[in-house]
């Protein structure tokens, strides 16, 4: 994906090898699209809720480095809430 928009402000670089998953917490409505459509099963729906009461995605156990930055989660999120950023080849 080529994103021409301006670069998000506060992405804290994570340590996953290929992609880092980012979430604007309060935008999430817990639809689970990102969770269930991720080809790598990177995500799961948290038990926790945001202030609107929606469960949001989080990295599944053991999947901290599994994201391949395929961006499917980014593309199917109806809320402009989740997106991944490429990581320079780490590990």
């Amino acid at each position, binding site marked *: 994906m080529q994103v021409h928009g301006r670069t998000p402000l506060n992405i804290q670089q994570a340590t996953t090898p290929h992609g880092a998953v980012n979430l604007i917490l309060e*935008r999430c409505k817990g*639809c689970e699209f990102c969770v269930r*459509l991720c080809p790598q099963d990177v995500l799961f729906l948290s038990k926790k809720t945001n202030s609107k009461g929606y469960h949001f995605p989080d990295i599944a156990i053991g999947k901290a480095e599994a994201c391949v930055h395929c961006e499917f989660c980014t593309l*199917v999120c109806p809320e402009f809430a989740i997106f991944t950023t490429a990581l320079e080849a780490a590990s």
Partner: protein
Amino acid sequence: MPVNRAESHPLDAIIRQDRMPHIWCPGCGIGIAMRCYAQAILQADIPIDNQVVVSGIGCSGRVAGYMNIDSYHTTHGRAIPFAAGMKLANPDLMVTVFSGDGDLISIGGNHLIHAARRNVDIKVICVNNFNYGMTGGQVGPTTPQGAHGTTAPYGNTELPFNLPYLMAACGANYLSRWTVLHVRQVLQDILYAFSKPGFAFIEILAPCPIGFGKSNNILNGLEEMELYLERCQIIRDGDVRADELGIDLRADNPIYIGKFIDRDRPPYQPVGAGEIQ
């Protein structure tokens, strides 16, 4: 392990982020379709200032309110002639109509068929969620026969339009159907439509869990996405006869998706000074 917390999104420049979160329900597919459109605008080779979106009324019609470009949220069914007026008055504009199935095909049906016939150079993105979401799940001209809705408590007795067939019969220049699961194709398709003069009609199937889903035992958006995953079959122009492109969600019929028509009719041009003899 928590995902990173972000405060803005790569597409925030092209959406009206001050208006987020949008009004769409959890699991609604409209946001995905809009996302594809937003990204296409960023990727296309067209000055963003020339990009215009026109919507009618409906949940899908709210897209105009969320796109950070010149955007017009008109009246129910009238987005197409409004858009046509804009395009003809200023041919530099890339005018996209983004609206719902009810808006475009029920109340707006006359403008749709005439715009397709004239081959007016506008791009129509139609979110088809098989019902009127905004007003609470009434059936409409895209609701499959037998499906339920708040105005069809005993089941819909009407046959829906086969939209691609209808558009083909009107002479549409470019015609495709996808679902919000087919995000990459939708993006490419919108980009292609931008690049191609003439009337383009892109139908995007999307879950409406609160309207269509609720009346039809589709629990949530995800379940409808899974239905797409199972039933969709990508075809190419000519693979399937136009009259077989209708959608019947009850039966085990496939839902055909793909690019159905890609012609090169000259786009509508008003008579110009040059042409007067």
